[in-house]
């Protein structure tokens, strides 16, 4: 009887643990689904807060903090009236929380974008401060994961958007984009893991035709 009871107790614990994880996955999935549709800054901030709440409650998952940062980074690209410094500080704070759990290349990509957004406020005055930050995030990310497609995408789109006379240009970006697409095709992301970027690369490559 004792055996049965302890087995029973164990199964209850396992059951609740599974439920916990299921709750996490469900909540993450629901938020990620929203991520694809939310367009406004207010909506993105709301979503970022929702991810952060999951992160705060779970404590050992880096993905919620990663997405809390990524949503704000999306707002940083789309909303020109946003205070880029305050937004970037929030992004970096989430990145730091994610890194404390699992330091990886995906977070470096977000840090790279945050510093880029701060630099673009006034490139001439700010490149000395943020240029090295942009570069070191990229450097660290490629060290951790040399074939990370999102880092390659950020590199290629940098060249794509830099005028030809500045050493960039579409021609120069083309082989980089093609390589990036290969990396995306080879990628097999785990559930909930980041997979953004592929569509942008395809759109950019389509612009050559």
């Amino acid at each position, binding site marked *: 009887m004792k055996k049965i009871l302890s087995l029973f107790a164990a199964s209850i614990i396992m059951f609740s643990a599974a439920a916990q994880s299921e709750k996490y996955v469900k909540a993450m999935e629901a938020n990620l689904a929203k991520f694809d549709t939310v367009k406004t800054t207010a909506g993105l901030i709301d979503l970022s*807060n929702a991810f952060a709440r999951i992160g705060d*409650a779970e404590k050992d998952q880096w993905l919620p903090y990663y997405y809390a940062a990524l949503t704000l980074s999306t707002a940083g690209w789309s909303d020109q009236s946003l205070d880029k410094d305050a937004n970037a500080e929030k992004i970096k704070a989430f990145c730091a929380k994610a890194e404390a759990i699992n330091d990886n290349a995906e977070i470096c990509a977000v840090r790279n974008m945050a510093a880029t957004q701060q630099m673009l406020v006034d490139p*001439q005055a700010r490149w000395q*401060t943020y240029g090295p930050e942009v570069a070191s995030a990229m450097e660290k990310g490629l060290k951790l994961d040399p074939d990370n497609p999102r880092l390659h995408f950020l590199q290629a789109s940098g060249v794509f958007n830099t*005028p030809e006379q*500045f050493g960039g240009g579409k021609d120069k970006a083309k082989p980089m984009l093609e390589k990036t697409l290969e990396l995306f095709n080879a990628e097999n992301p785990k559930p909930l893991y980041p997979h953004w970027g592929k569509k942008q690369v395809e759109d950019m490559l389509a612009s050559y035709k």
Partner: protein
Amino acid sequence: MKPLCYIFILLIIGYYGNAQTKISGTIKDNKNKPVPSASIVLKDTYDGATSDSSGIFSFTTAEKGKLTLTVTAVGYRPAEQIIDITGNDITINIAVKEEVSELKAVIISAGSFEAGDKKRVTVLNSIDVATTAGANADITGALKTLPGAQQVGESEGLFVRGGTAAETKTFIDGTLVNNFFYSSVPGIAQRGRFSPFLFKGTVFSTGGYSALYGQALSSALILESIDLPEQGSSNIGVSVLSLNAGHQHLAKNKKSSWGISYSYANLWLAFKAIKQRQNYSRVPEYHEGDANFRIKTSETGIIKYYGYFSANRLGIITPSIDTAGYYDAFNIKNFNMYHNLSYRESLGNGWKLTTGISYSTNKDNIEGQLQDGAEKEVNIPPLAYKNFELESPGQYFNAKTVIDKRLMGISVIRFGGEYNYSNDKYHYTLYNGQKFSSSIVENLKAVFAETDIYITNDLAAKIGGRFEHSSLLNKSNIAPRVSLAYKTGKQSQASLAYGIFYQNPEKKYLPSPDVLTFSKATHYIAQYQKVTSKTTFRSEVFYKKYNDLIKTDMINAAQQVAANNNGYGDAKGLEIFWRDKKTFKNIDYWVSYSYLDTKRDYTNFPYAIQPNFAAKHTASLVMKKFVTKWKTGFNMSYTYASGRPYYNIMYDGSNYKFTDMGKAKDYNNVSFSLNYLPGLFKKDSKTFTVLVLTVNNIFGINQLYGYNYSYDGSRKTPILPPSRTFIFLGAFISFGIDRTEDAINSNL
């Protein structure tokens, strides 16, 4: 079967336990204004919400019992409240307190132009200095395009708001620099000794500056040297004036670096090509070298050393105004050495230490002669004083320590001490071989304390005081300084500043047989500024009162010596600055205008007059455009100053009197420069070349600075620039460093 039963019951309980409770409310700040975008979290759950633009939030939760509701919002301190969820809907209003942060807070800015790579309020950086047409890559040349500084072309220095050049002091990494400019040459303004690229930050204060600095009645130029370079590099430069080479080495771990450079300048070629008004018996020639090392002692600590030496000489012969057919010869040899060692470190717990020492020596050998046509020295009785030799070696030691302690929020208290030692010797040899020697030794000790208090993000105050004791004067002073800043809008702010400033009598009027005290200036400044990411607007009004200025007596028929502190004066004015990188595509321009109304009675002035170094109206327009297709930057500047007064003051044996006065015509100057970067965008190239062409006074406008008078006042000759137009051409090449990124980023 029993266990299944239990599970079933558990599930049922779980199901009923899932009843949802609605929690809603409003987030407001302490001024009762709604706080949007705040994150409301039921701690350790997934449940929560974000407040909308009216501060309203609402969410549902299945949790039960006592839980903590936390509120976080950017710019506010986090708030927590415990709520008891029993199943009934909860309405709760939570107040958050504003957090004072550097990003949002007002900046205490009255009286100062801050330039550098800081996040905000960047007025000029080192590239701006190098690319300001007419400034010739000289720091003070570029600062003269900002409001407050005069366009004085006949002597070096920054003449700020009715003050003399001696009333501006320069500090590198906190410590005083004693011979910032090359030694004076009559009628020709000299450059600053230091390259703009040595500095990452520049604060040009035109008044009301911090209690950390003293001994400057008008202005402080505060320079902060660069830290470790990003990459090692070597460079060489070739120009019509000079040759130079240098090397910077960065350790592999990027924790330390060292560098050396050497340059040789000879103006023979330039003077051959461009006729100079002065006739050079010895063409200016300069040997200069410098060395540096920088060591990161920890994440936050750094030791920096910079050392410099310069040996230079020149000789000028001009037709003597005093006696027809004769010539005035002036020869100068200068040796200067400067060492600066500084250390800064965060001591933890909000404490920060910044300390530095500097040691320098300077020696001028000046020879004056009245010569006949064959360059032979002649002695003509009333003009015998023109034949002399002066050897003036000086030694200077400066030390300063500042300790910062961070208080609540971003408020800071700062205190420390400063010690300035100087020993200036003068050995004078008269035409008849008679020798006079004098020595002026000063030990100036100062202690200071100041605090930056941020009452809210919108209101801040800087309150400080400085105590100084001079061993030379055997006197002490206490100087209070106060500034206030109030944020009037998201990007605009208004500031007020008040301060008392003391300064020793200038050494050229010493030693004096009389008892002297400090000269004193009191500043009152009101400022309004609006700064957006691409534009800066700043306007300032000021009133400056001078007391205890030095009055001089004549001794030995030619030498002015300080007699008393009975001089006085005042200056008032209005200044406007506008910089805009937005309105015209790819064009960056700034405009400054200064109105100055000043009078003073000092040195030998018979009574209070508008001094000859002060123009009523001064204006500058500086434009820069980089054409990426041509890989070329085009820079233009226009400066204007209304005519300055000129005077001839003579001593009649008992009093000084005006024998002539007038007003020079207005000053106009248009300069142009061009930087061509042929290697730009050749990614991965190992060399980076910059070709520079500058043309000063491109239209050859006649410029008149004032007049020189003969000893008896009967004749005058105009003081004119050394040449009407000056052209400079140079090539500067760096190796082992790809600066394309820099060029892209600084021109995007």
